[in-house]
């Protein structure tokens, strides 16, 4: 600032005092159109590129896998307190209590059927255990929907297990006619 004043004085020897007095009192209008254009351009860009929703996560804890030499230590879940949920391809959903074929029921994913079923099961059983056995060709969305439903219910213990030959036999015995059931399970 000082340097500038000195320079001014040198250039204009009449004196800085006079200059100051003649400064216009009118407010200065800056043409802000360009700046506004730019600001709105940036605003539009950021508004369009921002995604506000951050993904969330479902926490999952799997049991320790059973290998051959530990197989005897593993306690099977009592039939009476097990509920098995089997998601099938094409959004089919089967559910059964215990291991009896006559208990097999077909549900749909909407209208809270699964929720009602879980509540019913919770009320009827002590130490309930829910086992999800997804068919290999069922999709991930079905699995997440089921886990999400369980997490919202009062069920505290659940596990994901393989869809085995025994499960296929139960569903077949129950007279389920699904194209996915005919294929042999690996």
């Amino acid at each position, binding site marked *: 600032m000082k340097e500038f004043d000195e320079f001014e004085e040198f250039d204009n020897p009449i004196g800085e005092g006079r200059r100051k007095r003649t400064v216009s009192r009118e407010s200065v*209008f800056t043409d*802000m*159109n360009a*700046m*506004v254009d730019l*600001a*709105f351009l*940036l*605003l539009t860009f*950021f*508004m369009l*590129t*921002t995604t*506000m*929703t*951050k*993904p*969330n*996560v*479902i*926490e*999952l*804890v*799997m*049991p*320790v*896998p059973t290998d051959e030499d530990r197989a005897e230590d593993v306690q099977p879940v009592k039939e009476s307190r097990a509920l098995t949920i089997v*998601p099938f391809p094409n959004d089919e959903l089967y559910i059964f209590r215990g291991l009896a074929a006559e208990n097999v029921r077909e549900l749909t*994913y*909407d209208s809270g059927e699964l929720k009602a079923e879980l509540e019913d099961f919770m009320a009827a059983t002590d130490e309930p255990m829910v086992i999800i056995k*997804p*068919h*290999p*060709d*069922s*999709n*991930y*969305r079905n*699995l*997440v*929907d089921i*886990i*999400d439903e369980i*997490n*919202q219910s009062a069920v505290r213990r659940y596990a*994901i297990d*393989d869809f085995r030959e025994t499960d296929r036999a139960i569903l077949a015995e129950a007279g389920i006619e699904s194209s996915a059931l005919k294929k042999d399970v690996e």
Partner: protein
Amino acid sequence: MARKRGLSKKTPHLDMNPMVDMAFLLVTFFLLATTFKLPEQADIELPYSYSEVDIPETNLLTITVDRQGLIFLSLSNHEFRRPWLNRMASIYDMEITREAEEAFSELSGFGLPLEELKPWLRLDRKEQLAHESRGIPADTLNNELSDWLIAARSVQPGLRFAIKADQVTPYRKLDRVIKTMTANRILRFNLVTEKRTGDEGI
């Protein structure tokens, strides 16, 4: 009449200060709220859930499984990527150049068998994205995924794991990944979902 039409020859001055203030305030807000994401190789449509747990931003290894079942990996912390690759290289007895290390630590994610990874790292970003992904092998005979997981956990203790899969990924593909994790005693992990707001339908 003539007088009226020629009323104001001057351009009217509009006080734009408040508007500019507003605009820049919003720009600043969006600028700060935006997190720039590098383009990813896998195009994932996440399933929805009501879960309230936010995704951790650090110490996270994300295993992405796309709709074909191809597996991609990405490690959140930059500083661990280099030792991760080196550990992996030592498991497979591979030579890794400095340039490859450098390129790898800049990488947000990858999905290639290890033997293809080295030439791929030499490509530039555009070519990398255009390159056909083959996914990280996770079958029983050649389970590189397992070694990547072991290597990651050994260089970064306290690492968390997340599975990010597409809505229509068949369960058999996920089963491979989950089996690989549990076999390595990674029993606690996260499933990445999108927050359900109620109007997505099931």
